[in-house]
C-alpha cells in the first residue's frame, strides 16, 4: 500500500497538475452534462406541469357546435380517458382580443398564483400581467350572445398550461392576435351546444410529452377520432337537417293553421260586410216602402178628410136648410123647444081634462101631435147639429191625430235614412279596412311562404358541419417550447462534444507527461519487484481520484447550475413553473465511463509502454528525441533571414508534432467556442438592429375599431390633429401557412399606396435593392420563402382562421429577420379577398410624444389598439438579454477551458524541457530570455491556433445559429469584426496571463537539481 501512499504524496507535490486534471474533467463533464440535461429537465418539467394541470391531448371544435350525442359517442371510444365538453368565445376586453373559457375542473386546469377559484357567476380568472385582484372586467355587449353577464370581478390570477408562450395564437377579433385568456364559470354560458370538447388519451399521462411514446399513445385515440369524425359530422348534419326540416314543417303547419283561421275570419268579416250591405239595402227598401206608404196614407187620409168635410158641409147645408125651414138659427132651438115643450105640457094638461071623445080633444090631441112633431123636428135638427158638430170635432181630431202620426212616421223615416247613410259609410270603411287587411294578410302569407321556401332552399344547401381536431402540437406555446428546448439539445450536441474532446485530449496529454516524467520511479518500482498491475493501479489510483473529484464537481455544476442558468432564458420567454432538476443516472454513468475509461486507458497504455523497457533504461532519462531539420530550412531564402533564436523556435515548434496538434486543437477549440459565443450574441443583437433599424422603421400600427372599405376623412383628420403626417391605410391580418409538418403564423400587410411604404417598411432584396409592390403579386419574407422553398414567380397558400385557403403569387422576396410577412397592394388584396378593406393605419410619430399621442388617439375611440414598434423592440431586447446568459455561459466555460488548456500545455511544455531550460539558465540566459525562448513557441502556436480557431468558429457559429434558428426567426450569421478582435484579445490575454504564471514557474526551476544526471 506504499504505492498508494506514494500516490497521495504525488498529489500533494503536484497540486497544479492534479487540479488541472480535476478542472479538465470537471469542465468537460459539467458542460456536457449540463447542456445535455437541460433540455431533458425542461421537457420533464413542462410534462409534469401539463400532467399536474391535465392539459388536454385533443381538442375538438365543430363548426356547428357539439351536442350531448357527440359527447356520448366520444365517451364510448376505446382509447379515450377524459371527455370534457366546454364553452369558449372570443371578445374584446379593453382593446385586447380575449378568449373567455368556461372553467373546467377536470381538464386544462389553471395554476392559481394569487386569489382563489371561481365561486359565482360574476367572477373571473385572468392571466398574470395585466389585471390585479379585485379589478372589474367588462366584456363588450356582443358577449351576451354567449354568456349572461358582461361585468366580472377578478378573483384569481392564473397560469394555464395551454398558454405558456407569449404568442397565444390567432384570434377572430381585434387585430387578429389573441392577447389574453380568461375563465368564468361554465354556468354563465347560455349556448345550446358545446363549443368544444377536450379529450385525454388513455395512458397519456404516464408518457412524457413530446416523446415518441406519447405520440404513439395519442395516435390510437387519433385514429379513432379520425374514424368517428365523419360519422358524427354526418349525424350532426342529419340532426341539424332534421331539426331544420322539423322547423320548416312546423312553420308550414303553423302557416296553414294560421291561414285557415285567418281565412275564416276574413270570410266571416266578409259575410258580415255583406250582411250589413243587405241590411242596408233592406233598410233602404223599408225606408222607401215606409215613405210611399206614408204618402199613400196621407193621400187617402186627406181624401177621407175631404169627404168628411164635404159630408159635414152637406150636413150643415141640410141643417141650414132645416133651420131655414124653421126660420130659426140653431141658437134659438133650445128656447123654441122649451116653448114647444111648455105648449105641449099645457095642451097635454088641457087634453087630460077634455073627454078623450070630444072633438076638442081630438083637435087638441091633433094639436099636441103637431106640436110634438115640430118638437121632434127641432130635436132632429138639434141632434143633426150635434152629429154635425161631432163630425166636425171628430174630423179635426182625426186630422190632428193624423198629422201627429204623419210627423212621427216621417221622423222615424228620416232617422232610418240617417242610419242607413251612416251604415253605408261604416260599411264602406269596413270594407276598405277589410280590403287592406286582406292584402296585408296575403302579403304576410306569401312572405311566410317565401320564407319557408327559402328555408327549404337553405336546408338543401346546408353545409355539413366540420370537426376540427387539434392536438397539443397546434398550441403554439406547446410546440414552440419544444422547438426551443431542443435547440438547447442541438447546441448540446455540438458544443459539449467539442468541449469534451478538447478536455480529454488535455487530460491524456497531462497523464502521458506525468508518466513520462516518472519513468525513473516506475523503473525503480519494477526493479524493486513490484508487480506491473500494482504499479499501474497506483497510477490509476492517482488518475481516478482526480477524475472522481472532477466528475463530482462537474456533474454537480452540470446538473444543478447549468440547467438553471439556461432555464432562466426560457422563463423569460415562456410562462413556466420552476425547473425540476434531475440527476440523469444514465448520462452520468456514461460520462463517468468515458472519463474513467479515457483516463484509465491512457494511463494504462503509457505505463505499460514503459514496462517494455528494461528497468535500467527506465532509470535513465529518456533519450532526447532526435533533432531534425525542418522543411523550412530548405527554403534558405527564408531560413537565412531568421535570427538564431527564431531558428531555434521554428526547430522546436516542429520537434513535437503531438504537442503542436494538441496545442492547436486546444487553442483553436477554445477560440472557436469563444467566437461562437460572441457570434451568437452578434447574430441576435444585429437581428434587432436590422429588423427594427433597417426594415421595420415605422413607429406604430393603429388598429381601427371598424373595418372600413375606403379611407375615412374623419380618421385622417384625427391623425392630422395629433401631428401625425406620415400615415398609410392598410390591412393587417393574421394567417397561417403550412410546411411539411407545421403550421406557421404569417402576417398579411396590404397597403393602399405602394409608393408610400418605404417610409414605414424597407422592402429590400438580398442585394439591398429596394423592392416595390405591384398589383400582380406579393412580397414575402426571406424566411418564409426559405421554409416553403419557393422563389419569385411561384405561388403559395395561406389559410385564415376559418381554414379558408388563398393562393398568392410571389413577386418578390424581401429581407426580414423576425416573423413571417406577406406584403401586398390593396388592389391585389381585392383580387384575392374580393374587396379592399382597411383595419389599420401604419404611422410614424413624433418620438418624444409617442405616449401622449397614443393616449389621445385611443381617447377618440376610433382605434381598438395601438401596436408600437418600441414595444416589440423591448420584448426582443428581453430575449436578447436572456440569450446573453447562454452566451455568457458558453464564454465562461470556454474561458475556463482556454485557461486550463493554455496552462496545461505550457506546464507540460516546461516540464518536458526542464533540462533544456536549466541549461539555458546555466549558460547565463536571463529570466526574460529564458521565458522568451519558451514563449516564442507558445506565442506562435497560440496565434496560429487562434487563427485556425477563428476559422473554425465561423463554421461552428454558422452551424449553431442554423440549428438554433426558430421558425419565426432568420438569424444574420455575420460575426462582427469586433467579436473577432475580442476573441483574439481574450485568447491573447489568457496566453499572456498563463505566460505570466509560467514566468514564475520558469524562474523557480532549479538549475542544479535539473542538471543532475537523472531526473
Amino acid at each position: 500500500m506504499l504505492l498508494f501512499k506514494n500516490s497521495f504524496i504525488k498529489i500533494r507535490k503536484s497540486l497544479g497538475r492534479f487540479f488541472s486534471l480535476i478542472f479538465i474533467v470537471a469542465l468537460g463533464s459539467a458542460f456536457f452534462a449540463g447542456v445535455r440535461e437541460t433540455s431533458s429537465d425542461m421537457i420533464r418539467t413542462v410534462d409534469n406541469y401539463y400532467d399536474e394541470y391535465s392539459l388536454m391531448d385533443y381538442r375538438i371544435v365543430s363548426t356547428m357546435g357539439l351536442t350531448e350525442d357527440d359527447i356520448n359517442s366520444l365517451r364510448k371510444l376505446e382509447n379515450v380517458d377524459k371527455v370534457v365538453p366546454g364553452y369558449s368565445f372570443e371578445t374584446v376586453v379593453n382593446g385586447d382580443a380575449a378568449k373567455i373559457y368556461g372553467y373546467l375542473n377536470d381538464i386544462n386546469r389553471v395554476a392559481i398564483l394569487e386569489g382563489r377559484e371561481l365561486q359565482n357567476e360574476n367572477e373571473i380568472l385572468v392571466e398574470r400581467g395585466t389585471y390585479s385582484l379585485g379589478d372589474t372586467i367588462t366584456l363588450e355587449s356582443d358577449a351576451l350572445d354567449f354568456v349572461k353577464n358582461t361585468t366580472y370581478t377578478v378573483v384569481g390570477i392564473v397560469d394555464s398550461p395551454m398558454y405558456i408562450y407569449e404568442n397565444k395564437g390567432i384570434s377572430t377579433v381585434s387585430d387578429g392576435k389573441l392577447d389574453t385568456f380568461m375563465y368564468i364559470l361554465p354556468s354563465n354560458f347560455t349556448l345550446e351546444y358545446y363549443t368544444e370538447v377536450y379529450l385525454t388519451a388513455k395512458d397519456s399521462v404516464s408518457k412524457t410529452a413530446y416523446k415518441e411514446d406519447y405520440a404513439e399513445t395519442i395516435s390510437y385515440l387519433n385514429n379513432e377520432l379520425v374514424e368517428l369524425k365523419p360519422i358524427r359530422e354526418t349525424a350532426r348534419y342529419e340532426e341539424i337537417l332534421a331539426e331544420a326540416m322539423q322547423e320548416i314543417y312546423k312553420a308550414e303547419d303553423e302557416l296553414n293553421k294560421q291561414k285557415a283561421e285567418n281565412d275564416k275570419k276574413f270570410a266571416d268579416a266578409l259575410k258580415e260586410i255583406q250582411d250589413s250591405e243587405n241590411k242596408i239595402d233592406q233598410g233602404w227598401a223599408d225606408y222607401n216602402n215606409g215613405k210611399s206608404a206614408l204618402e199613400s196614407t196621407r193621400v187617402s187620409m186627406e181624401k177621407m178628410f175631404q169627404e168628411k168635410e164635404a159630408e159635414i158641409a152637406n150636413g150643415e147645408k141640410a141643417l141650414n136648410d132645416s133651420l131655414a125651414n124653421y126660420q130659426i138659427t140653431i141658437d134659438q132651438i133650445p128656447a123654441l123647444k122649451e116653448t114647444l115643450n111648455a105648449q105641449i105640457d099645457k095642451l097635454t094638461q088641457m087634453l087630460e081634462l077634455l073627454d078623450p071623445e070630444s072633438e076638442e080633444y081630438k083637435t087638441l090631441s091633433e094639436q099636441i101631435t103637431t106640436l110634438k112633431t115640430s118638437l121632434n123636428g127641432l130635436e132632429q135638427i138639434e141632434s143633426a147639429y150635434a152629429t154635425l158638430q161631432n163630425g166636425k170635432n171628430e174630423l179635426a181630431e182625426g186630422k190632428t191625430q193624423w198629422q201627429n202620426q204623419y210627423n212621427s212616421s216621417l221622423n222615424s223615416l228620416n232617422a232610418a235614412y240617417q242610419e242607413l247613410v251612416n251604415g253605408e259609410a261604416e260599411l264602406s270603411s269596413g270594407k276598405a279596412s277589410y280590403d287592406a287587411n286582406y292584402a296585408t294578410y296575403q302579403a304576410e302569407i306569401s312572405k311566410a311562404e317565401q320564407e319557408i321556401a327559402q328555408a327549404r332552399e337553405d336546408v338543401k344547401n346546408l353545409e355539413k358541419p366540420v370537426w376540427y381536431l387539434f392536438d397539443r402540437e397546434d398550441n403554439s406555446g406547446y410546440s414552440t417550447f419544444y422547438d426551443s428546448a431542443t435547440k438547447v439539445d442541438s447546441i448540446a450536441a455540438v458544443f459539449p462534444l467539442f468541449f469534451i474532446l478538447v478536455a480529454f485530449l488535455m487530460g491524456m496529454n497531462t497523464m502521458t507527461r506525468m508518466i513520462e516524467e516518472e519513468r525513473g520511479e516506475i523503473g525503480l518500482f519494477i526493479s524493486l519487484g513490484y508487480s506491473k498491475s500494482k504499479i499501474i493501479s497506483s497510477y490509476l489510483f492517482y488518475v481516478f481520484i482526480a477524475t472522481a473529484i472532477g466528475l463530482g464537481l462537474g456533474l454537480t455544476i452540470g446538473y444543478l447550475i447549468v440547467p438553471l442558468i439556461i432555464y432562466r432564458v426560457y422563463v423569460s420567454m415562456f410562462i413556466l413553473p420552476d425547473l425540476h432538476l434531475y440527476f440523469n443516472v444514465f448520462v452520468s454513468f456514461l460520462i463517468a465511463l468515458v472519463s474513467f475509461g479515457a483516463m484509465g486507458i491512457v494511463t494504462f497504455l503509457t505505463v505499460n509502454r514503459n514496462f517494455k523497457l528494461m528497468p535500467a533504461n527506465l532509470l535513465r532519462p529518456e533519450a532526447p528525441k532526435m533533432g531534425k531539420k525542418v522543411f523550412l530550412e530548405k527554403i534558405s531564402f527564408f531560413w537565412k533571414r531568421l535570427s538564431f533564436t527564431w531558428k531555434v523556435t521554428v526547430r522546436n515548434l516542429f520537434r513535437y508534432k503531438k504537442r503542436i496538434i494538441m496545442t492547436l486543437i486546444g487553442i483553436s477549440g477554445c477560440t472557436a467556442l469563444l467566437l461562437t459565443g460572441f457570434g451568437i450574441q452578434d447574430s441576435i443583437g444585429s437581428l434587432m438592429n436590422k429588423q427594427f433599424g433597417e426594415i421595420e422603421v415605422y413607429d406604430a400600427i393603429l388598429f381601427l375599431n371598424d373595418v372600413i372599405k375606403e379611407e375615412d376623412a374623419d380618421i385622417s383628420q384625427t391623425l392630422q390633429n395629433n401631428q401625425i403626417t406620415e400615415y398609410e391605410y392598410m390591412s393587417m391580418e393574421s394567417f397561417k401557412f403550412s410546411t411539411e409538418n407545421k403550421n406557421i403564423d404569417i402576417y398579411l400587410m396590404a397597403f393602399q399606396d405602394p409608393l408610400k411604404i418605404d417610409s414605414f417598411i424597407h422592402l429590400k432584396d438580398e442585394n439591398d435593392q429596394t423592392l416595390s409592390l405591384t398589383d400582380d403579386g406579393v412580397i414575402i419574407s426571406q424566411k418564409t420563402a426559405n421554409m416553403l422553398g419557393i422563389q419569385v414567380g411561384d405561388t403559395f397558400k395561406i389559410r385564415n382562421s376559418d381554414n379558408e385557403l388563398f393562393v398568392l403569387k410571389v413577386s418578390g422576396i424581401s429581407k426580414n429577420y423576425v416573423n413571417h410577412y406577406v406584403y401586398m397592394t390593396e388592389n391585389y388584396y381585392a383580387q384575392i379577398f374580393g374587396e379592399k378593406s382597411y383595419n389599420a393605419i401604419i404611422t410614424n410619430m413624433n418620438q418624444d410624444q409617442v405616449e401622449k399621442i397614443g393616449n389621445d388617439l385611443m381617447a377618440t375611440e376610433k382605434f381598438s389598439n395601438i401596436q408600437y414598434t418600441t414595444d416589440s423592440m423591448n420584448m426582443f431586447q428581453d430575449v436578447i438579454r436572456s440569450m446573453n446568459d447562454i452566451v455568457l455561459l458558453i464564454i465562461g466555460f470556454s474561458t475556463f477551458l482556454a485557461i486550463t488548456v493554455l496552462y496545461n500545455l505550457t506546464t507540460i511544455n516546461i516540464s518536458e524541457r526542464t533540462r533544456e531550460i536549466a541549461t539555458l539558465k546555466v549558460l547565463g540566459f536571463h529570466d526574460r530570455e529564458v521565458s522568451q525562448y519558451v514563449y516564442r513557441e507558445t506565442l506562435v502556436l497560440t496565434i496560429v491556433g487562434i487563427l485556425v480557431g477563428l476559422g473554425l468558429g465561423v463554421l461552428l457559429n454558422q452551424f449553431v445559429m442554423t440549428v438554433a434558428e426558430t421558425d419565426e426567426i432568420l438569424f444574420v450569421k455575420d460575426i462582427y469584426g469586433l467579436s473577432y478582435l475580442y476573441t483574439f484579445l481574450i485568447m491573447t490575454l489568457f496566453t499572456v496571463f498563463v505566460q505570466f504564471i509560467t514566468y514564475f514557474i520558469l524562474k523557480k526551476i532549479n538549475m542544479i537539481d535539473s542538471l543532475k544526471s537523472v531526473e
Partner: protein
Amino acid sequence: MAFIDVKKLSKTYQMGEVTIKAIENVSFSIDEGELVVILGPSGAGKTTVLNILGGMDTPTSGSVIVDGKDIAKFNRKALTDYRRYDIGFVFQFYNLVGNLTALENVSLASQICKHPKDSLTTLKQVGLGDRSGHFPAQLSGGEQQRVSIARALAKNPKILLCDEPTGALDSKTGRMILELLQDTCHKEHMTTIIITHNAVISEMADKVIKIKNGKVDDILIQKNPKLVKDIDW
C-alpha cells in the same frame, strides 16, 4: 591577489528541522590560467563549491572574490550576468539541447555573449569541424562532451568549470576530453577548474584542492603537472 579567492565559504541547507552543512569554512585561491582539480569523494561538497563558483548557488557565509568582485554578494541578475559572461560550464551529462545541431548548440551560448569566439572555429578547435551540422543524438558521448566544451569555450569565459566531465565516458574518451581541457587551459591561458572524485585526474592539475566532509582537507600545488597523455590510468 589571486584571480579567485575563496574565503571561509560555508553552505548549509535547511531540510525541515535538520540543518545540513554541505561545506564549512572552505578557503582557497586560484590564479589566472591555472588548471585546478577539486578532488573529493561523493557527497564531500565539491559540487556545492562548484555551484557557488559557477554562480548557480549562493553561499550561506563567506566570500568568493572572482577577478576582484565578491560574487557571494551578487543578486540573481548579477549572478546570471556572471554566468553569462564569465563562466563556461562542462557537465557530466553534456546538457546539449537535443533539437539543435552541434554548431547551434555552440551558438546558443555564444550569441548572448559580448565577445564570443566564432562558433565554427571553436567547434573545429575541439575537433568537430566536420560534424557541426549533426544533432546531439547523432554524436557519441565523447563528441557530445566536446560540443559541450566548445559551447563553454565559445563564450570566451574567464573560468571554465567542469563537473565530472569524464564521468559518463569510457576512460579512453575521457582522456581525450581531459587532454582537450588541459590543452585549452595551457594554450588559451584559461582558468579551468575540474571537479572529480577520480584522484588520477588530479595529476594533470597545477593545483589540487582536496575536499572531505565539506572541508578543505588539503591543497596540493604541483609545479610540474603531468600531461594527460603521460598519466597512467
